[in-house]
């Protein structure tokens, strides 16, 4: 038992730190730190910087242009990036589709799509969920009917994150109604500029439109856009899920959020005392910090296993649940810390260019926006209930 990082790992952490210090553009990190909106160009710019350093596709092997990091190195990078207020790497092409193509794609598909993902030629979004298929993903009904050398796709996806930026969407579509529902699903790559695709934004309770509905009306897609076998899409979907679950604890993000909470609790006063010196509020911060310290080690225990070659299994469900509870508690305390100034609804102040004085402290509106927005953490990527179900079945064998 040795809870310290090796000398090599510590050197790697320093390397990551200095890279971030030198290369992360300040206008972008300032937006992240202050909770402002990021533009599509901000994301693309940051991706391009990481791409040039060879650090963009964090979970890709070297052969495909990834850095070839193991789980511990990946963890170090993600933690430092979050603490430096780097934007998150948009996961859809890089963390989700990339590994699926590497595993199931044809040589032509790999040659065509993987470099485009790295260069940022395409912005991908994830077309899994439908109005009737959320937790029960296998019940997707968007249909793809083979007609000659095309599939004709009709149906609807929903909750599609950042589809407004995307030109490509990977979808689970129904190609057969025979047998178990899982057996009739295919994994299809769809060009969103195809005739018949429409995108409608959905405004969430934080006032932002980060998700969308995507409609398909007889959209013709060439058969070479099928990944894996026809009716073999569920295998791709399950494989993708294991990749979606890397960095699932969101540890770096939790640390950055805790820093932000403390900064705000220092700035806010209640009567004569700073909120951070208020015993009750300080004890609330302390409790969540103690949880976070332990979770960092729980996370490393799973990561170390993964680095030793064991794919993270149902343990990642524990990390997702606990990480989510911690982050949502931090967000709640941050919202509480801004006191009565949580009340104004001022989405224009999420725009960096806004010149007017905010109502109350500048950190108020972003704190509330984040509190509402991060309700999603326990809903998407397998809800907390579904994760508990996995733990009960796969670990406890109940």
């Amino acid at each position, binding site marked *: 038992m040795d809870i310290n990082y090796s000398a090599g790992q510590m050197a790697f952490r320093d390397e990551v730190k200095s890279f971030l210090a030198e290369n992360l553009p300040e206008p972008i990190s300032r937006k992240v730190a202050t909770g402002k909106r990021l533009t599509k160009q901000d994301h693309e710019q940051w991706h391009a910087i990481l791409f040039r350093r060879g650090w963009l596709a964090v979970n890709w092997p070297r052969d495909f242009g990834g850095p070839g990091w193991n789980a511990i190195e990946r963890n170090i990078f993600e933690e430092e990036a979050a603490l430096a207020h780097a934007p998150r790497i948009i996961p859809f092409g890089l963390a989700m589709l990339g590994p699926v193509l590497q595993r199931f794609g044809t040589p032509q598909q790999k040659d065509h799509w993987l470099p485009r993902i790295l260069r940022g030629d395409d912005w991908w979004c994830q077309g899994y969920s439908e109005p009737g298929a959320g937790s029960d993903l296998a019940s997707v009904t968007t249909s793809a009917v083979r007609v000659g050398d095309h599939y004709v796709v009709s149906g609807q996806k929903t909750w599609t994150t950042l589809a407004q930026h995307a030109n490509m969407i990977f979808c689970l579509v129904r190609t057969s109604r025979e047998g178990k529902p899982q057996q009739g699903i295919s994994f299809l790559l769809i060009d969103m500029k195809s005739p018949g695709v429409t995108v409608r934004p*959905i*405004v969430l*309770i934080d006032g932002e439109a980060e998700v969308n509905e995507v409609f398909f009306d007889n959209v013709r897609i060439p058969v070479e856009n099928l990944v894996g076998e026809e009716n073999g899409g569920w295998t791709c979907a399950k494989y993708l899920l294991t990749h979606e679950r890397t960095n699932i604890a969101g540890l770096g993000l939790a640390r950055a959020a805790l820093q932000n909470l403390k900064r705000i609790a220092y700035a806010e006063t209640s009567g004569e005392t700073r909120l951070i010196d208020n015993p009750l509020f300080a004890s609330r911060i302390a409790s969540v910090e103690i949880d976070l310290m332990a979770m960092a080690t729980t996370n490393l225990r799973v990561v170390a296993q993964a680095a030793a070659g064991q794919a993270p299994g149902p343990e990642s469900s524990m990390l997702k649940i606990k990480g989510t509870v911690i982050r*949502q508690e931090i967000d709640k305390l941050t919202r509480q810390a801004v006191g*009565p100034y949580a*009340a*104004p609804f001022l989405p224009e102040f999420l725009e960096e260019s806004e010149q007017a004085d905010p109502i109350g402290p500048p950190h108020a509106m972003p704190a509330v926006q984040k509190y*509402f927005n991060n309700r999603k953490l326990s*809903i998407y990527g397998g809800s907390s209930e579904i994760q508990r179900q996995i733990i009960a079945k796969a670990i406890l064998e109940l």
Partner: protein
Amino acid sequence: MNFDLTEEQTILQGGLRRFLREQATPDTLSGATAGDAGHSHTLWQGLVEMGVPMALFPESAGGLGGSGFDISVVFEELGRVGAFEPLLESGILAGGLITELGTANRQEVIDQIIAGRILVLAHAEPDSRYDLAHVQTTADRVDEGWLLTGRKSLVVAAPAADMAVVSARVSGAISDRSGIALFMVPLNNPGVELRSYRLQGGGRAAEIALEAVRVSDNERLGGGNEAFAALERVHARACAAQCAEAVGLMNGIRELTVDYLRGRRQFGKPIGSFQALQHRMADMLIEIEQARSATINLCGHLDAPSAERERQVSAAKNLIGRVARQVVEESIQMHGGIGMTMEYALGHLAKRLTMVDCRFGDADWHLERFVRLSAVAAEEFA
């Protein structure tokens, strides 16, 4: 012991419920927030015609009652649909202070409020957080009157009002309870400037800047040093209204969530058949009943001696704040993605319920206050 409403209260409740169910549609509410006034003229007129503002005033002031349970009947119904018409601001805060302290034309103004005129209380300031005694705005004596200078913040419903009751300091330090005075200030007076904005929970508020605003002695509420005590009393009533509104919101949310659990199917069955969700819904129900009881406790103590009344205020606000969080977070969670959209009725109700905790003191603020106020009671164990 009797937990039933009076006949008049039952009639008011039924009428309000029908009216609001028909008229306070999500479109009406979001339209109201978007408009300049930040409230709905149609809803307001309807409430006035039903005599709702009148129910908030005592008979001695030309009202119908104004007891704690009159307040709770009204505000629970508003909460159920997420309405935010300025009854609390005009009827309870501004109207309550005018009733308590009087002005030169006290009854005339109360009659106008009952007839639908909207007044607000401009009391909180940028640095006051939840401290009721914090008043930095100054009132300087000149000739026969006063010059008011300072900043008032988060004045809910100010964009709908033409007149504000403004607190200002005539003596003492910023957080002293004594030395506070209250004045009636027309919002179109020279030197008054409003900056209006939307609220997360619906409706609008304003920041108000006062620059040497001239008011006469006639516009002062009461004459002596009783302003703080009156502020505390009307805020106790406002907290009762807010707690009742929260109970209404909780029940509105509960109904939506139970319906959704029954109707939403995943894995071939209603999600309400999953025990994991059933138990949480059951816990939520228990806590909502607790919230109702805490509100009843407060409403039943509004006329108690101030030490006991204020302890009840903090008890209710603490419990309501805790349960509000649970109801908001659990109901969104049990809905899944749909619970996060503004396109579905839960969105507005959940946001409004969240915001209950950041007005008049949050759960932790009232927990600490409850401890302090209970210290007197603890002495008997010494």
